[in-house]
């Protein structure tokens, strides 16, 4: 498959343009809210959505087949001041200068928002409400600390949704959804107090449905207008085709593959306009799109190349818009990443193999266009066609970091564990990076990041941060007075329990506020049962409501550190807790010999039970403790060992750790080994990882490995890798992903970023352009052990 010239031009534009902030969405939403004072919040949000769809100056850019942007620019980021504006006010003067994920923004824009937009939201935003309600003792640990981090849940929207194309959107279209809402509304009565909230809800969904249809019609009208003025006959035809497509979708069920693709993009846009979401997942694209693809191919209205071009055009659309986030958040989610996870392969609801021609076209599209979105995930099951696994390892060998490779059965097992019906469990797709998810669900899949290494630090340092001396954890006795390894370990778990507690507090406070301040009428129309229940998605309206996910960061650092304490202090007695504590306070300076000894103690990731057993115990404890809490809907919290780039900011706030790590250095992601300590081979790292009970961590587990490109250069190498993946999954593990770039290539890219603009690397649960990462992130990527043969 080759890209067409059109795709290449679109791609060049994407690669070479810097994202720009567009303030139109903020302006229109704010002006709309000024007009709707006094109305219920859902109505106000829906009206603002409608007003944007009606007022925003729509544009169709050169060469586009799939149309629509949420801002004036091809690569636009939008502002959502109703969630938070303070960080924007504080940071926007530096937007174009910050090291990670810079945006263009003009002085004129800045002065406009400071004068006309921010003042309106003062005291009204989600952020301000959250910070005023959050108990002080939780705020101390959870606000911009890197210890317990849930800033993406009160400075941003939740996102973390997979629109239901299969059972809601494609069969009904927004016209059908609108009718359902109107019918339901007609049956309600203001005299019934229990109907009042439902009436508000239905009115809000009616407005957003009308809004998204209005938005599409305006694109249709624009395309028709442009066609009249277009001299190029070919482009004129295309514009008329675009007009026809936008006249039909998303109002009605799609009639063609092209319409279905445009429908998907309109839904993404609707959600972007609503809330600037993270992890708005296209889900099982190859499944719900295949009937349209197949019918068009068989009906002769589409050839394969044209189908590929549409898929690639959509990939560029997924990548062009940017998620506007704070500098703090970029530490956790680096690389302009929107986490739109698209899952291909796996099994059907009845358990049979689900791969089809589109599954392959998606893999190839990621190879050809080299965009950082969608986050491409594959599901591999035991009876997966060899051809599909070959296509997966072929993409791995290209060094894009894609796809994220998942164990089909483990994903289904995780959903069963979370309470899903078996058929729905089999129908899972990924949310964000590596969270097994199902489309009929309301869930916060990345609610909080918890810094495990901080828990260890508080246990060893009398409850205080080693870097600031501030009391952050529970009271703990001096390190020197621990009499046994068990005592140290239990003290660490006790501190972890406390961090989990504060994570729960921060989550439920945010959840409650979301139901009141930022309901989601548009997304409620995309998820089954919200309409039936007459309840917003943010208020538990979905068919399934699953508990929020708490992600543990630094599992390997804590396991390695406890192993060092066990061996050097209590078994070999070559040092004491007091001396070790002094060494950590000194950041190992003057204790180089002790550090050398610590580095020689077995490290997680080498299939050594001595330390792996400790990791397993921590992981199991984490699961049990997390599950003991419930959210505002009564759902149990879920544990996860996910990635994202969170292992870097969490490391910055933790002093030296007994494992030999120096202060402020990164900790570890997911169930991955500490960078550079998995010296045996990727196989040993896989065996270590698989010892964690992946199936209980229903928020997902992540293993990142770097492979030398030599290992996958040949067909035999790729076949062998495929078999290694099968073997790894036979152990019940959930996910693995590979960066297959040589250090040499990465060094070259650092030196000549211009020449490597399209070089994708896997950061953690996702891939992004290497040159878009800060120098520090680049070093962290390079530091991951490159497994290679001699």
């Amino acid at each position, binding site marked *: 498959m080759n890209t067409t010239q059109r795709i290449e031009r679109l791609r060049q534009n994407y690669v070479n343009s810097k994202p720009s902030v567009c303030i139109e969405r903020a302006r229109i939403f704010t002006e709309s809210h000024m007009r709707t004072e006094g109305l219920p919040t859902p109505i106000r949000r829906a009206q603002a959505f409608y007003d944007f769809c009606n007022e925003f100056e729509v544009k169709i850019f050169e060469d586009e087949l799939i149309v629509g942007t949420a801002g004036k620019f091809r690569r636009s980021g939008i502002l959502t001041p109703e969630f938070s504006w303070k960080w924007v006010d504080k940071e926007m003067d530096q937007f174009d200068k910050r090291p990670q994920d810079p945006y263009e923004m003009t002085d004129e824009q800045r002065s406009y928002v400071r004068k006309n937009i921010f003042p309106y939201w003062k005291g009204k935003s989600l952020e301000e409400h959250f910070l005023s309600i959050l108990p002080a003792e939780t705020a101390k640990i959870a606000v911009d600390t890197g210890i317990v981090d849930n800033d993406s849940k009160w400075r941003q929207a939740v996102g973390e949704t997979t629109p239901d194309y299969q059972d809601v959107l494609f069969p009904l279209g927004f016209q059908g959804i609108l009718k359902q809402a109107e019918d339901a509304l007609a049956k309600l009565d203001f005299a019934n107090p229990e109907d009042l909230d439902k009436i508000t809800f239905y009115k809000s969904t009616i407005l957003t449905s009308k809004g998204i249809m209005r938005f599409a019609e305006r694109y249709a009208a624009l395309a028709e207008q442009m066609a009249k003025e277009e001299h190029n006959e070919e482009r004129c035809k295309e514009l008329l085709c675009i007009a026809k497509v936008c006249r039909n979708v998303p109002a009605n069920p799609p009639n063609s593959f092209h319409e279905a693709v445009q429908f998907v993009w309109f839904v993404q846009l609707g959600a972007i306009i609503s809330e600037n979401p993270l992890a708005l997942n296209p889900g099982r694209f190859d499944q719900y799109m295949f009937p349209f693809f197949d019918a068009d191919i068989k009906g002769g209205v589409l050839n394969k190349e044209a189908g590929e071009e549409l898929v690639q055009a959509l990939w560029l659309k997924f990548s062009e818009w940017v998620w506007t986030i704070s500098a703090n958040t970029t530490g956790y989610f680096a690389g302009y990443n929107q986490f739109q996870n698209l899952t291909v392969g796996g099994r059907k609801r009845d358990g049979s193999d689900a791969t089809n021609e589109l599954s392959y076209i998606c893999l190839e599209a990621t190879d050809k266009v080299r965009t950082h979105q969608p986050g491409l995930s594959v599901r591999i099951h035991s009876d997966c066609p060899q051809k599909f696994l070959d296509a997966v390892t072929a993409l791995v060998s290209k060094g894009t970091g894609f796809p994220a490779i998942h164990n089909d059965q483990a994903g289904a097992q995780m959903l069963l564990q979370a309470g899903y019906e078996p058929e729905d469990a089999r129908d899972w797709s990924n949310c964000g990076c590596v969270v097994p998810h199902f489309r009929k669900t309301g869930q916060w899949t990345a609610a909080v990041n918890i810094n495990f290494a901080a828990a260890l630090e508080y246990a060893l340092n009398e409850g205080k941060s080693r870097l600031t001396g501030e009391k952050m954890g529970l009271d703990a006795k001096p390190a020197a007075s621990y009499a046994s390894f068990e005592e140290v370990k239990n003290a660490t778990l006790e501190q972890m329990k406390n961090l989990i507690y504060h994570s729960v507090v921060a989550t439920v406070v945010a959840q409650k506020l979301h139901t009141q301040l930022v309901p989601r009428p548009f997304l409620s129309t995309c998820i089954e049962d919200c309409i039936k229940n007459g309840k917003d998605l943010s208020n538990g309206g979905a068919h399934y409501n699953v508990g929020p996910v708490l992600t543990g960061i630094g599992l390997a650092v804590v396991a390695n550190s406890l192993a060092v304490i066990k061996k050097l202090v209590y078994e070999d007695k070559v040092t004491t807790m007091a001396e070790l504590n002094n060494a950590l306070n000194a950041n190992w300076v003057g204790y*180089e*010999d002790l*550090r*050398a000894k610590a*580095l*020689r103690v077995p490290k997680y990731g080498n*299939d050594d039970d001595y330390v792996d057993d400790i990791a397993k115990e921590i992981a199991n404890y984490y699961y049990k403790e997390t599950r003991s809490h419930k959210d505002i809907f009564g759902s149990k919290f879920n544990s996860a060992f996910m990635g994202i780039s969170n292992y870097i900011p969490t490391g910055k706030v933790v002093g030296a750790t007994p494992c030999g790590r120096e202060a402020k250095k990164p900790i570890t992601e997911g169930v991955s080994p500490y960078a550079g300590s998995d010296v*045996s*081979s*990727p*196989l*040993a790292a896989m*065996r270590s990882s698989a010892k964690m009970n992946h199936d209980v961590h229903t928020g997902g587990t992540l293993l990142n490995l770097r492979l030398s490109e030599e*290992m996958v250069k*040949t067909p*035999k*190498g790729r*076949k*062998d890798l495929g*078999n*290694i993946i*099968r*073997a790894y999954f*036979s*152990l019940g593990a959930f996910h693995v992903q590979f960066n297959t770039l040589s250090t040499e290539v990465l060094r070259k890219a650092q030196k000549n970023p211009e020449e490597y603009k399209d070089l994708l690397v896997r950061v953690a649960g996702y891939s992004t352009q290497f040159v878009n990462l800060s120098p520090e992130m680049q070093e962290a990527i390079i530091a991951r052990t490159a*497994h290679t*043969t*001699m």
Partner: protein
Amino acid sequence: MGECSNKGIVIQLQDYSIHDGDGVRTTIFLAGCKLRCQWCANPESWTTKSKLVFYRHKCIGCMKCAQACPVNLVPCKMDRHNDIFTACGKCVEVCTQKALDIACSEKSADDLVHKIERDALFFRYSGGGVTFSGGEPFLQHKFLRVLLDRFEELGVNSWVETCGYFNFEVVQDLIPKFDHIFLDIKHMDSEKHKEFTGHSNELILENAKKIYAAGVPMTIRIPTIVEVNLADENLEKTAQFIRNNLPLATIELLPYHELGKAKYISLGIEDKFIKFTTPTEDQISHAYDIFKSYGIEVTEYR
């Protein structure tokens, strides 16, 4: 039944090997070899003695190794080729920079079985197994005898990579236990063979025939080096030998590479490194054409 030993000298275990046979394999490098091929990439394999390895670029000159040395040598000054030097490893333990290491150490059969048992999962899915390499693995036939049976019990297949220079009679019983044998033929001219490897080739060619007669699938590997064995005449002669004596054996050419140089440096024997020339892709493909013209099948494990 020959002699057995539960212990042997191992240079290294390398899992996720994909160039040493079918599937994903764990290669067990056994120490000791009688040949001294001038292009050898594994000089640590020449003897079974433990050797100190020093990575100069990591050293910070702290002298902790010298303080730890029980015989008062200075390991980081390459001060170790001495009668009293035993590579006891005390200096390795104290080096904070991981600049020192020991190559070749004694391992028990249990040690290896433990590792192979864990790797077996990956063998099962990929059709892989164990490959013995070296050094010349047949020199440690007592250890090999134990390991082959232990691995068979695990359901793990064993391949071997040999230079052919050993006493056939003492290893005869082991040959049928292998699932596949790689045998190197370095040169057909005995004089040249002696010049480049230190020994003539008669024993190797004789052993090749005897091994072949045991009926184990066989691949002849040729380390292909421009200055040594790439001349058409030598390739023709090699092809004739295979066709006449080992008709079902396949052929694989291993182009010379310089990656061994770092090892010579770290072992402090940089002066023994000789640089040869890597054949071009065209030269390799021309060489393969010669073998194919004799009806010899090419198999590349790469």
